[in-house]
Each structure stands twice: as structure tokens, then as C-alpha cells.
């Protein structure tokens, strides 16, 4: 009962916070609500016995990325743009589409038959240590995707440098 109660609180809070993030007029407020949102998501990972992911979520997302978000939002000084009608006029259409999608997902997810769980049950993970298992899986089973991710990140870095380069002289 108690775990369900906890999950219920965090799930409801995540939905509410997400709505707050996208409806605030002030972008700084949005980012701060997002910070709270990330903390709640981290708590969900904790319930899944994934303490390493919790730490990553807190340190990288809440710690590093959101600070960058704040920097960008403050640098841009969005005051003038936030009320522009072409950004806000379409929200009724967006709401209808979102509700339709929610309805479709609601109907179809009721039919779900949960598939077989893998070999890494909670007991196995607890015995060997979460970080230990994660590292092993990443470097054996998921070695190929792991290497591809490194190239994806490299491209992101190159892209950032290219877009920040000086204009060539003619």
C-alpha cells in the first residue's frame, strides 16, 4: 500500500509540475519548476532500486543542465517575446490534439499484456550492486549502442563549435 501511495504522489506531482513548466509566462519560473520536476523524477528512479540513475539525474540534469538553461534564459531576456500571439494563440488546438492522444493512449494501454521481465531482477541487482551491473551491461550486451552514443555526443560538440564559429572573410 505504502509504495503505491508514494508512487501516486510522485506521479501526480510530475504531471502537475510538467503543466506548470509549460504554462508559466516567465521563462525563469518555468525552469525553476522544471528543477522541482527533475527532483521528483529522481525519486521515481529511487523507487525502482536505481540509485545510480537517481544520482545521475540529480547531478547532471538538475545540477548541470538546468544551470545552463537558466543562463540561456537570462541571456535571452525573453520579456518581449513571451506575449507574441503567434506563440500563444494555438494553445486550444494543441490542447485538443494532446487530449485526443491521451484518449488513444488511455484506450490502448488498457490492453497491454506486460512482457517477460529480464534476468536483472531486484534481488540480482541488489546482490551485485546497481552501478556494478549497469557497467557490466553497458560494456558487454550494449557495447555497440554505447560506442554509437560517443559518436553522437562528438557530433553535438562539433555542431556547437561550427555554429559558434566566426564568419569567413570574403
Amino acid at each position, binding site marked *: 500500500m505504502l509504495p503505491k501511495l508514494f508512487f501516486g504522489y510522485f506521479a501526480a506531482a510530475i504531471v502537475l509540475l510538467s503543466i506548470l513548466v509549460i504554462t508559466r509566462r516567465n521563462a525563469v519560473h518555468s525552469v525553476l519548476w522544471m528543477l522541482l520536476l527533475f527532483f521528483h523524477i529522481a525519486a521515481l528512479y529511487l523507487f525502482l532500486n536505481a540509485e545510480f540513475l537517481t544520482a545521475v539525474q540529480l547531478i547532471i540534469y538538475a545540477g548541470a543542465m538546468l544551470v545552463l538553461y537558466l543562463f540561456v534564459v537570462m541571456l535571452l531576456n525573453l520579456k518581449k517575446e513571451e506575449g507574441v500571439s503567434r506563440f500563444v494563440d494555438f494553445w486550444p488546438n494543441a490542447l485538443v490534439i494532446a487530449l485526443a492522444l491521451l484518449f488513444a493512449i488511455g484506450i490502448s*494501454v488498457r490492453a497491454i499484456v506486460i*512482457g*517477460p521481465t529480464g534476468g536483472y531482477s531486484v534481488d540480482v541487482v541488489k546482490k551485485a550492486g546497481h552501478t556494478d551491473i549497469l557497467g*557490466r551491461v553497458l560494456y558487454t550486451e550494449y557495447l*555497440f549502442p554505447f560506442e*554509437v552514443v560517443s*559518436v*553522437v555526443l562528438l557530433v553535438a560538440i562539433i*555542431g556547437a563549435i*561550427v555554429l559558434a564559429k566566426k564568419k569567413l572573410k570574403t
Partner: protein
Amino acid sequence: MQLVMPDLNPVIPEILLTVLALILLMADLVIKRKETIAFLSIVSVAGVAYTLIGSAGTTFGGMFVSDGYSTFFKLIFLVNVILTILISVRYIVVENINFGEYYGLILFSTLGMMIMASAGDLIVLYLGLELMALSTYVLAGFIRHNVKSNEAALKYFLLGAFSSAFLLYGMSMIYGLTGTTDLKAIATYISKNGLEGNKTLLLSMILFAVAFGFKIAAVPFHMWAPDAYEGAPTTITAFMSVGPKAAGFAVLGRVFMTAFGAIHVEWSVVLIPLAILSMCIGNVVAIAQTNIKRMLAYSSIAHAGYALLGVIAANNEGLASMMNYMLIYAFMNIGAFGIVILLRSEGFKGEDITDYEGLAKTHPLSAALMLIFMFSLTGIPPTAGFIGKLYVFMSAINAGYTWLVVIAVIFSVISAYFYLRIVMYMYMREPKVEVSLSTSPAIGLALTVTVVATLVIGVFPSVLVELARAAISRF
């Protein structure tokens, strides 16, 4: 659990391309003449193409599949990247964006496409897709001092991220349902447990169709295409109208035929409206365009509609005809963009359709080449475009979709109006503006290759058709 060295033989082309792209990025520091980097890139890609021979096999526990199907698509990507580099050499000087990273990013994007084509696992598929897309977003915004190019990159990025979200949602559902991300294991699990009519599976399939629809620019997921194609550097427009589209078709074919093979009736029902709408909106809206890049963008949407017919047929013959179509489209489309690039010179954009008026009098050779590419895009024999359409339509008829082919032929006739209007402008009007071509040996070579391929495939189609059939038989 011991670390077992995986069999690297099937991945050698990808590893080689990664290493060479990294070396070229470093070489950019010391090589001041960017033409040298372009030349080295082409040599690298040729080397990678050579290693494709004998790379067949499955490795990393089924995550990476190198078979005839993936090799054929990799061939399309490598043809695409070589032709794009050839038409870029002069163009990026004219546009004042002559950075070495340009070639590096094109190669990384191609690497992403190759990984997509070979993906036997949903995670690998997603990462390949992101690698391809991320490089292409940056390339679309490569003319940083141009607002239109910025707009192109931003729109492409936002809608690309949107489509990725759909893809991930679909993947999470199918993972919850089957407990695996391996395409073959998903198919086995579905048929073993009788999940064919499951609603979650259906929704997952629809979400996949939406995500891939964005990548191949099928209506109604095409909204980004005209703006992105118009604003991006023309060479990159050529690149992304062929590469990411072919990669989208590669994963569409593999995921739908393998993982969703059991519900092919259902996904045909989803794809048929996409195909009809793409042919309709693409061809009809193209008529109203005055900018040739926008016109070719709508034409590219329409061609996605034709190629979808091959997938809808849901058999090997259909897939083979779709593969043929993508290769033929690569040649004729990059050829057409090559002419658009020729017209671009310092201080002259050459993107308006009226700029082509009287081109036959001032530059007869370019006009003749454009004539061939426009005939081919329309699908008039004896060009390759005719062969591509013929086989796609035949496979759809054999699969029992005669009515769909009738619709396709009607829209194909409509498309003749805007393709042949260019020809009419070139041959039957007097020149109004002074057009000077920015020629170079590289673009000359690219145009020669594309025009020869367009004509040779048109006259002797059997070689290509047999190649695609042989490739699909090792699916």
C-alpha cells in the same frame, strides 16, 4: 559475465568510416585548402564502399545486421555522399561557408544512416537516427549569417525532436509488451503469444509510422520539409532529400517487415492514406511554387508517396522496387540540384523558376541536362525515373492495389505540369536575366555521373533490378 570479443567483420565499414571521419576532422587543422579535404573524403568513402563487400553477417548479439538489404541501402548512402561532396566543392566557396567540418559532418550523418540501415535492435536504430539527424540539423544551419538557413535548421530540429519523441513512445510500448528491443525477438514473441490484435501493439505501430513519416517527409508529417529545404544550403538540401529519406525507408521496411510482420494488413491501412496524401499534396502544391528549391521539396514529398507504394505491397518484390526507386531518385534528384547549384554565383541566387527562362539559348548544355533530370523526375521513358515508377507500380498491382496505382498515375500526370514548366521556360522563353554559371571540374563530374546513370538505368534497367532482387533475397 566475461567480456567476449564480438565479431567485428560486419561492422568494418562503419568503423572505417568513423576513423576516417575523425582523421579528416583533425586534418582540417593543418590542411588549408578545403578542396583537398573534399578529395580525401571521397577517397575515404570509396574505401568504405570497398569494405562493404564481404561484410555480411550479424554481430553484437543481433544488434547489428549486415545483409543484402542493408548493403544496398549503404550503397545508396555512399553514392549520395560522394555526389553531395562533388557538388559542394565550389558551392560552399560561393556561399562563404568553406569550413572543413562541413565534410566531417556529412560523413558522420552518413555513418548514422548506415547504422540505421543495419539496426537489428530498436536502441541501435534510435541512436543511428539521432546521429544522422543531429549532423543534418547542423548542416541545414551551416550558413550562419543567413536568417533562412537558421530558420531551416531550427524547424528541422524542432520537428525532428518531436518525431523522436513519437518513436521513443512507440518503442517503450513495444518493450513493455514484449520485454525486448530486438526486432526478430519482438516478431517471435508476438506470434508465439498471439498478440496480433493487441491495441497497444497497434498504437505502437502507428507511433512508429508517425516517426518514420517525419523522416521520409510524408504528408501530413511534411510541414518542416519546404522551409528546411528552401533555407538549407542547396547542397545539403540535395543531401537530405536523398539520404535521410532513404534511411527512413530502410528502417520503415525493416521494422515493419520484421517486427510488425504479423500485422502487415493493419500497417498497410495506416500507410495507404500517407501515400495518397503525399502524392496529392506534394504534386498539387508544387504547382504553385515559384522557388525551385521549394518546388523540389514538394516533389520530394510526392516521391516519398510513390516509394511508399513499394512498402505497402508488403512483400520482397515491393521492397526491392522501393530500394530501386531510392537509388534512382538519388541520381536524378542530386542531378537536378546540381543544376540549381550551377546557377548560384556570387550575388545571384538563381533559385527563382523564372531564372531558368531562356537557359537553352545562353547555356545549352546545362539546359539539356536539366531537361533529362526533369523528364526523369516526371517518369518519362527512356529515363531512370520511368523504370523506378514502373517497378513500384507493378509491385503494387501484383499485391492487389490496382486502385492505388491508378491514383498514383493520375498524380504522376499532374506532376508533369510543374516539371515540364521548367523545360518550357528553358526552351521557349527569351532570357531575361544574365545568368553566369559557377562551374568546376567536381560538379562537372557529378553531373556526368548522374546523367549517365539516369540514362543507362533507363535503357538497361535489368542490372539494377537484378541487384535489388539479389539484395532482398538475403534479407
